[in-house]
């Protein structure tokens, strides 16, 4: 754990036992440290939800903002002072539901931010309601007979909207995740790293992943490496049920905003 980045006087944190968010925070702080960021030139932002409590535990300037709006606040911070490094923690409800519009526009502007989305497929903070990433058939308190809406693919969304760097990993793939966050930090423009993660309390309990390890096993066994899939899949072949691609989806150099002037 990158203890030097943490507000130790704020611990213990509010995350439930077995939550994936702590693992993701640790990977992000590892990457931030590797990128050479310093505590006094780095700002963490977040919206509302479990993911969004993360900046409060990190000893830098931080803005814990309103639900879904973190990217709009981050746009203000970065455009007003491009010399600051800006990292945003968000969740699936925060970025894909209430903050969907800010998400696609931040991607389109390609503002120089790194966004880490802790996607646990559920509203954890409010006790387990369905989100725009709850898979079809999965139960939550607002989808008691199984979700019927088609979920968003956050990676496709970010790529289509114009982000310069987009990757997906899970709370199981800590080495790859840390590497992806580091790549995101080092890529000028908008970077999205989607991290699928376990929520044993609100999601796992209702979907036969009662133990944290149950969902970690699922993440490991259902994550398909994008490069490998592209190499081995037959034309037109669909991913197996419930499987998903992980890896780097885009790394490009579209025009960006909010990059510090070197002069």
């Amino acid at each position, binding site marked *: 754990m990158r203890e030097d980045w943490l507000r130790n006087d704020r611990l213990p944190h509010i995350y439930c036992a077995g939550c994936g968010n702590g693992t993701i925070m640790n990977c992000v702080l590892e990457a931030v440290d590797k990128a050479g960021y310093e505590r006094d030139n780095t700002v963490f932002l977040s919206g509302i939800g479990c993911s969004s409590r993360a900046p*409060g535990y990190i000893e830098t300037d931080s*803005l814990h903002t*309103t639900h879904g*709006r973190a990217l709009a606040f981050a746009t203000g911070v970065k455009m007003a002072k491009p010399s600051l490094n800006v990292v945003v923690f968000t969740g699936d409800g925060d970025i894909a539901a209430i903050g969907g519009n*800010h998400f696609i526009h931040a991607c389109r502007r390609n503002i120089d931010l790194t966004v880490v989305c802790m996607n646990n497929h559920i509203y954890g903070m409010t006790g387990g309601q369905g989100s725009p990433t709850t898979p079809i058939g999965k139960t939550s308190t607002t989808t008691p007979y199984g979700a019927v809406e088609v979920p968003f693919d956050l990676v496709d969304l970010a790529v289509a909207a114009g982000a310069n760097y987009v990757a997906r990993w899970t709370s199981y793939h800590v080495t790859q995740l840390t590497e992806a966050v580091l790549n995101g930090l080092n890529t000028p423009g908008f970077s999205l790293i989607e991290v699928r993660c376990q929520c044993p309390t609100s999601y796992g309990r209702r979907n036969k992943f009662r133990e944290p390890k149950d969902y970690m096993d699922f993440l490991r066994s259902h994550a398909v490496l994008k490069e490998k899939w592209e190499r081995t899949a037959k034309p037109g072949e669909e991913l197996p049920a419930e499987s998903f691609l992980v890896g780097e989806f885009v790394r490009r150099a579209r025009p960006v905003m909010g990059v510090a002037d070197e002069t």
Partner: protein
Amino acid sequence: MQGNIASAEGALAAGCNFFAGYPITPSTEIAEHMAARLPKRKGACFIQMEDEIASMAAIIGAAWTGARAMTATSGPGFSLMMENIGYAVMSETPCVIVNVQRGGPSTGQPTMAAQGDMMQVRFGSHGDYSIIALCPSSVQECFDLTAKAFNLADQFRTPVFLMADEVIGHMRERIDLPDEVMVIRPRPLPEGVLPFTPVDNGVPGFASFGTGRRIPVTGLTHNEQGYPDTTNPARHESLVRRLVSKIEDARHEIADFQVVNEDAAFIFVCYGAPVRTVQEVVDRRRVPDTGYLKLRIVWPFPEKLLQRFTNVRAFIVPEMNLGMISREIERHVQVPVIPIGKIGGELHTPEELIEAVHFAGGDA
């Protein structure tokens, strides 16, 4: 110069270096003018956001980097801003919001004047709080009061509102541009003092992001360190009472007004566009024994001003709404208060005001 352009120029004179906005009639000229002017200033930024929610969010983010940040809108956009206005109040973020009021509710009358947002500006976001709202009644005041709004925002660490209206925003008048305007920045956060410890009349010092103070900012109820503390009733009460009292306690100190014919029996209380009709009636003595109190700062409401009218028989309150500030006046006085609410977008006529004086018992 046009009122909206004067607001933009007043902001620029005060050192505004960040503007985020979204096009909306009748305020758009402000964004257009900032879009032309700000990119020519070193380190300044204009950005057109995806909606007014984002505009409000962006200026708060910018303000925390130390920028003098502003947005401008009208009713429908103002409604969208309410969420993050509450955040600015709770996080004590200095910023300026211009609302060029038009007829509502909903899309209403985009090109017509109104003052229907005077209660929304005071109470529109959820929870208990106070804000500062200024009302210009001339193009000169659009310039002067916008510049002043930045100083009040920094001084009190609060969102400050310029509540203009379509008439004043689109009116063209000759104005005097000062060589420079007074600039008051926030008190710096003293070394060793926590970021939300009040240091002066309930207002904490300010340190911007990137200056080494590592400030955790949240919309949750928080302690003086900025850490969330949401279930302690005493903590919440002391924080919210301070947010309210830092502004309400200063209401007479910051009161900005003009009094004419203090000894008259019939006193108009007015702000914004209706001031112009009142001036026509009183200054030109169209009806005897009348005077007026013109408010440049409407919120916090400086109720003690009403006590100076010792001969008053009635307060007459012309507003371009169905009676908002008239009720605030009623709460504080013993004499009759006669609201003249007018909606639809047109100014009061002098005859309507004269008729009200007659109704109140004044001589023809």
